[in-house]
């Protein structure tokens, strides 16, 4: 019997398109991933390395869950659905034959679809080089064992697990929806546990809890070198093997239980029907003699609409699977909301902007799936239940049925859209958080979530009514959605006018809410809602009422319906759609320039090819700026009038200036006459900007000086510039000019060719025909000390903060004026100006030399929870740093909160800033974890008032060892001094992770500190070795060296500027001979920190003095390096290192002081 059923199953499957579709989808996806090299690899690893193949197999087996669910689920459900049960009960079919025939006959196809991953990978390995998509040397040899082994050890057991799981569920519950819900729960559960695993150190848990073995695999290969990656098969041994055995056994056990519990009769006959006890002998109801019947007019239509909508909603909410899926999502979301973001294990306060932001980041696809699924159920419910034979002969006009369905789905979508708000408010109330930002909830709901949900519903609905077959419609809708998602998230294409339901991106902020992005987003939402309506109207022409089948009948019907109000409606909506679209196009592609990612890169490449030759031409440098700056945050405008003094400090005569406008609208004047200029470079028009000029000038201009500037001479030029954004753009714009906070660099163009604008990634450079970039090329300029005289005006309710001494503050014409002066020491460029709707808290700190210093904290009103902590950090820092490195030289100290778009952290003369979402403003320090990272963050940026603002490092690649490394070291010592040894541990651990990951993955050949070229060296290695040194010989000696260094190099006006070698030689002078070799190894070699030997222990291990000093830091170090192997295995985790790294949210526009140091 088994043989017949098995053979039948195979023949049946072979006739179905589904298995072919799955197979080829997987095959094509895998082939492309490997042919195009879209797999996560380092530069030195082969695309088809065994590690990549294994990881790919593991990841794909998670997604193949979809295939195993639909195939294994249908294997026996089919008999219920098609009602073939009578045959099965009457035929002489045996239970083993049926059960195993069905299971194996189906599983073979799941296994075959699974095999498509590695077949595809193998094909991709061949196709990639053949089509020239990837160079041949990116691939290793394609031995079959490399493909077969991961399939057999990873894919197949995982598929067996999911297949048994779904097969068992369907035979137990006799229902196919159980697959949707359990699939969703399994997937969400997997995401939750992965989230846990990221924070777990327990090897056993990491390896064994994952049915797909992905986490274990990742941990296993984390520390592998490129060579191992390329040559070693990931063998199933140890915990990896145990994982496979464990989950295969679970699958087998599950299957066995299913088998023993399986009974033909029970499976086919279903639940025993419950008989309700009847209440007999009631009065015989009498029908009304002549009921009032009204079948016409709007009153009838309204009543029908009401009852239809009601019954549709009842149908959705009475389905228990709806609640299972919904509660699965809710639990998951509640979990994320409750845990919240956090750093160093310290959670944030539950901020509104986080809830709305994370929801829009994480859940739209999940919501889309719910919506598309229930749209399918709702649209096809009548046909599916065969109730349409009655329903469709009822009198209401078709549009009433149509509208009722749409309304019920919109109600569902609205409910779903409100979930994050309700959940967010509950979490905030439960946690007792005082700042419920109801305005922000409301604006996020109205501007983003609700319209997005409505557009989603309209889209799904249109597709489902236009396509008769529910599953085909699901397929079409999900495919379109996935393509849109892939296009945008992989940065292939982002022209929102052509991407259904997409709008410009923004990040909700506590300071500004959605701010000025409301307008563009709302326009796009209106556009997509209209588009959705149009889709629905057109789709309604094909709304299937009755038993009509086939295109011919549908076309006849559509033609019948295309008249009267329908025509008017469609034409009107179409007009509206084009009007809104035209307006958006006018803003995005006419008023502003839209460029695709490729075009932007190509422009950078063109500029590099044409202008790089001017990189080294002599240019003057700025020495003084007098500026009148008017800021209008409410209308997002700025005007600048600046007198700039330029000095020729080269030994050649300068007759032209190469000016980099950086998108500014500006003119240069000399003695009140506008200077003429020429453009050295034009770009071709963007491909979507049809109505703009064919040639667009680049930002560079040549200005010829009337009187050439001789060496040592200087001139004064006047720059007038305005920032006034016309219209809106395709993506985020004006990120620095928010209504409540504004950050500007003064809007002066730069001087000279900017290497910082060149394309950095070699793969992208290759696409644009550029040579590889020299990794050691200098991209910075030397520091430049300038004096400032700035008068700034801003809105009356704003406070403006500028480096320097506040000379005068006044109000006139309902505007707030400030005059700042910095004419003594000068400031190192670049500098920035902040204007914001701040609250402030001022204190006076008495410095160690007895001088009182005004210390101000400027923050948004809701972020007042950690002010005391910040104050103590500032006080401690000023005291410790002044005492150890030299007095604080500036007239005031200001700490500012910066907005979510950046700058991430600010270190300007007398001013430091931390970003609102990650800086520590929201850290909830009341919990168990007392890691006071806000204190530490402040300590780091404050230390930059010494390292950076006083000692400006030179332009060498390694110079952040001074500005960042020393700042982190200082902060560590500060925490150690004021908060004790234990308080430093989390920060040391974090630095260890940064260093450990960088060290393991620096396959270019790790440099020593003197030639540091990577962040993990200056951010982590430098402070760690200094910190350890201070532990060995006492902080005073190290600090004395740094004090010396500062004294030698502070406020330099000309070359040479401080370099790492200078720092090193200062250190050497203060270090006792016993530690010289430690210092040498730490700075001149790339020996891992854990292996550095200190003191005499390397040569004289028996010295009692050395033994009696069991160095804490070293123990910490070795512990850390162990735990880090399990932790820092993800690429994502590797990124967030110290507080200095750039946030992913930091947009290009955010003017972090990385620009040219010489503003014109």
């Amino acid at each position, binding site marked *: 019997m088994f043989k017949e059923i098995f053979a039948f199953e195979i023949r049946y499957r072979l006739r179905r398109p589904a298995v072919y579709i799955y197979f080829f989808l997987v095959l094509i996806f895998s082939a492309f991933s490997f042919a195009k090299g879209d797999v996560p690899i380092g530069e030195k690893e082969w695309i088809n390395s065994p590690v990549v193949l294994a990881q790919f197999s593991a990841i794909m087996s998670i997604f193949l869950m979809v295939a195993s669910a639909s195939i294994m689920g249908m294997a026996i459900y089919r008999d219920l659905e098609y009602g073939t049960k009578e045959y099965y009960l009457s035929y002489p079919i045996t239970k083993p034959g049926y059960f195993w025939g069905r299971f194996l006959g189906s599983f073979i196809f799941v296994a075959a679809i699974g095999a498509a991953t590695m077949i595809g990978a193998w094909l991709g390995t061949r196709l990639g080089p053949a089509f020239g998509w990837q160079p041949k040397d990116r691939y290793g040899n394609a031995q079959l064992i490399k493909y077969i082994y991961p399939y057999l050890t990873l894919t197949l057991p995982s598929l067996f697990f999911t297949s048994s799981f779904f097969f068992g569920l369907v035979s137990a519950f006799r229902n196919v929806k159980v697959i949707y819900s359990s699939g969703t729960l399994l997937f969400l559960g997997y995401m939750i546990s992965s989230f846990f695993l990221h924070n777990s150190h327990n090897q056993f848990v990491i390896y064994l809890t994952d049915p797909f073995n992905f986490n274990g695999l990742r941990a296993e290969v984390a520390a592998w070198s490129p060579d191992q990656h390329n040559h070693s098969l990931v063998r199933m041994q140890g915990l990896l093997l145990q994982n496979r055995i464990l989950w295969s056994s679970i699958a087998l056990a599950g299957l066995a239980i299913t088998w023993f519990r399986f009974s033909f009769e029970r499976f086919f006959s279903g639940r025993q029907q419950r008989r309700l006890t009847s209440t007999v002998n009631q009065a015989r109801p009498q029908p009304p003699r002549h009921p009032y019947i*009204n079948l016409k007019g709007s009153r009838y239509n309204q*009543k029908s609409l009401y009852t239809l909508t009601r019954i549709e909603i009842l149908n959705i909410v009475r389905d228990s699977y709806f609640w299972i899926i919904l509660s699965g999502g809710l639990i998951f979301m509640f979990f994320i909301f409750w845990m919240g973001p956090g750093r160093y294990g310290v959670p944030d306060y539950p901020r509104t902007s986080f809830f709305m932001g994370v929801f829009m980041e994480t859940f739209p696809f999940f919501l889309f799936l719910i919506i598309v699924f229930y749209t399918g159920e709702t649209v096809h419910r009548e046909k599916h239940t065969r*109730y349409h*034979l*009655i329903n469709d002969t009822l*009198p209401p*006009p078709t549009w009433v049925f149509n509208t009722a369905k749409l309304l019920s789905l919109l109600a569902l979508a609205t409910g779903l859209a409100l979930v994050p708000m309700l959940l967010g408010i509950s979490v905030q109330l439960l946690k007792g958080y005082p700042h419920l930002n109801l305005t922000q909830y409301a604006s996020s709901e109205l501007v983003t979530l609700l319209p997005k949900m409505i557009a989603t519903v309209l889209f799904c609905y249109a597709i489902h009514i236009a396509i008769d077959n529910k599953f085909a419609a699901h397929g079409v809708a999900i495919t379109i959605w996935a393509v849109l998602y892939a296009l945008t998230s992989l940065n292939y294409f982002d022209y929102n006018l052509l991407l259904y339901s997409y709008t410009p991106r923004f990040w909700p902020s506590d300071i500004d809410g959605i701010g000025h992005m409301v307008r563009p987003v709302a326009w796009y939402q209106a556009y997509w809602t209209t588009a959705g309506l149009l889709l629905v109207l057109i789709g309604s022409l094909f709304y299937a009422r*009755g038993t009509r089948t*086939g295109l011919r009948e549908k076309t006849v019907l559509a033609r019948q319906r295309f008249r009267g109000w329908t025509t008017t409606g469609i034409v009107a909506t179409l007009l509206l759609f084009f009007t809104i679209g035209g307006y958006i196009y006018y803003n995005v592609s006419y008023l502003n320039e839209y460029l695709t990612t490729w075009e932007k890169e190509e422009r950078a490449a063109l500029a590099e090819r044409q202008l790089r030759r001017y990189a080294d031409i002599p240019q003057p440098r700025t020495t003084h700026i007098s500026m009148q700056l008017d800021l209008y945050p409410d209308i997002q405008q700025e005007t600048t009038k600046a007198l700039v003094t330029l000095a020729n400090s080269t030994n050649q005569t300068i007759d032209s200036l190469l000016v980099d406008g950086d998108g500014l609208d500006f003119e240069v004047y000399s003695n009140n006459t506008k200077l003429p200029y020429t453009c050295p470079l034009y770009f071709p028009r963007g491909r979507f900007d049809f109505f703009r000029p064919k040639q667009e000038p680049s930002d560079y201009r040549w200005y010829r000086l009337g009187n050439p500037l001789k060496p040592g001479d200087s001139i004064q030029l006047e720059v007038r510039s305005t920032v006034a954004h016309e219209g809106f753009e395709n993506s985020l714009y004006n990120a620095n000019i928010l209504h409540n906070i504004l950050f500007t660099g003064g809007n002066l163009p730069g001087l000279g060719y900017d290497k910082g604008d060149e394309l950095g990634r070699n793969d992208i450079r290759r696409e644009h025909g550029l040579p590889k970039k020299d990794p050691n090329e200098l991209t910075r300029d030397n520091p430049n000390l300038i004096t400032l005289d700035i008068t700034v005006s801003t809105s009356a309710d704003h406070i403006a903060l500028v480096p320097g001494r506040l000379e005068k503050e006044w109000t006139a014409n309902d505007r707030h004026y400030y005059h700042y002066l910095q004419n003594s020491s000068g400031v190192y460029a670049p500098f920035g100006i902040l204007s914001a709707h701040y609250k402030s808290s001022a204190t006076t700190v008495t410095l160690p030399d007895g001088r009182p210093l005004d210390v101000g904290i400027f923050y948004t009103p809701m972020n007042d929870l950690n002010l005391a902590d910040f104050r103590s950090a500032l006080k401690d820092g000023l005291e410790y740093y002044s005492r150890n490195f030299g007095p604080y030289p500036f007239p005031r100290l200001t700490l500012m909160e910066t907005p979510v778009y950046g700058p991430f952290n600010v270190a300007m003369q007398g001013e430091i800033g931390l970003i609102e979402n990650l800086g520590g403003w929201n850290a909830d320090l009341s919990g168990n974890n007392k890691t006071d990272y806000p204190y530490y963050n402040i300590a780091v940026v404050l230390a930059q008032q010494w390292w950076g603002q006083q000692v400006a490092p030179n332009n060498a690649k390694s110079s952040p060892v001074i500005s960042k490394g020393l700042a982190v070291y200082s902060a560590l010592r500060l925490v150690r001094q004021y908060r004790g040894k234990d308080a430093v541990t989390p920060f040391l651990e974090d630095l260890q992770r940064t260093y450990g990951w960088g060290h393991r993955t620096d396959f270019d050949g790790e440099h020593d500190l003197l030639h540091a070229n990577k962040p993990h060296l200056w951010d982590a290695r430098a402070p760690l070795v200094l910190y350890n040194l201070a532990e060995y010989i006492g902080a005073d000696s190290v600090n004395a060296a740094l004090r010396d260094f500062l004294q030698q190099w502070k406020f330099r006006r000309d070359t040479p500027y401080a370099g790492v070698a200078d720092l090193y030689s200062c250190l050497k002078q203060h270090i006792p001979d016993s530690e010289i070799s430690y210092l040498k190894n730490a700075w001149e070699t790339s020996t891992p920190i854990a292996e550095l030997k200190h003191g005499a222990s390397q040569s004289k291990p028996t010295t009692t003095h050395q033994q009696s000093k069991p160095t804490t830091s070293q123990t910490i170090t070795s512990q850390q390096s162990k735990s880090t192997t399990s932790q820092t295995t993800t690429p994502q985790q590797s990124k967030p290192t110290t507080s200095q790294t750039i946030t992913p949210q930091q947009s290009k526009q955010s003017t972090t002081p990385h620009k040219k140091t010489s503003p014109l």
Partner: protein
Amino acid sequence: MQLSIDRLSKTYPNGVRALHNVSLNLTNGMFGLLGPNGAGKSSLMRTIATLQEADSGSIRLDDLDVLDNKTGVRRLLGYLPQEFGVYPKISARQMLDHIARLKGIERSNERRDLVLALLEKVNLYKDRDRKLGTYSGGMKQRWGIAQALIGNPRLIIVDEPTAGLDPAERNRFYNLLSQLGEQTIVILSTHIVEDVSTLCSQFAIICHGEVLYHGEPGNAIKSLEEKIYSKRIPQNEIEKYRAGYPIISTQLKAGQLYIRIKSDEHPGNGFSPAAPDLEDVYFTHISTKMDVNTL
């Protein structure tokens, strides 16, 4: 009321010719549709019930163009389809109330009385609050009858209404039908020839999408008077008889095989005259179109 169907044709996209030049005239009263499986009965009924389009031809209900003014037809219609389904999570009573509202019964008290009375009539009163998904096949069929009668329909179409009903429920249903007013057209399709002869004033036989006969049952039977002969034969001789006589039906009774033939003259050879019934009419017409082999 008069329903006139004129040269109605319909071919499905898969090539099946469901209706071919069907012309019928129906007046108030009960009209029976007889025909083998796949004859086109349901297609015809669904077309009248506005569920599908016709390729050509016309249907008029008095002045109403059925194929064009579907809403007009739906306002007069009560339809019980063959093998219909229901929303499984909604109770019988709630669903009838919903349909009553859609059939224009605006006042909620009248709706309530009507729904309860109908549930009583189809013997579902005690199960009125159960979810339709828990109903058995017969209960669902009775619920279907109830919904078709809501709102005083003038045109009632019932497609094999008694399928799945036990004899008692079947009688109950026929009683219900016969109580309907004189002003109503009832179209009933069935396989049970006897039902047509007892219930219907008019009937038609359809096969392969064509109307083979249209008239009153009595007249039809009368037309076969003295033309039907029957004989008991040994089972193994059936082929021999099939070759020699126009057999219209065969019947096994207690192991004996009886055959009936149509013949204008007495065939002799042991055949004896028999009283014609509607089944003879049915088989006589069907056998001209298809091979009726009941053995």
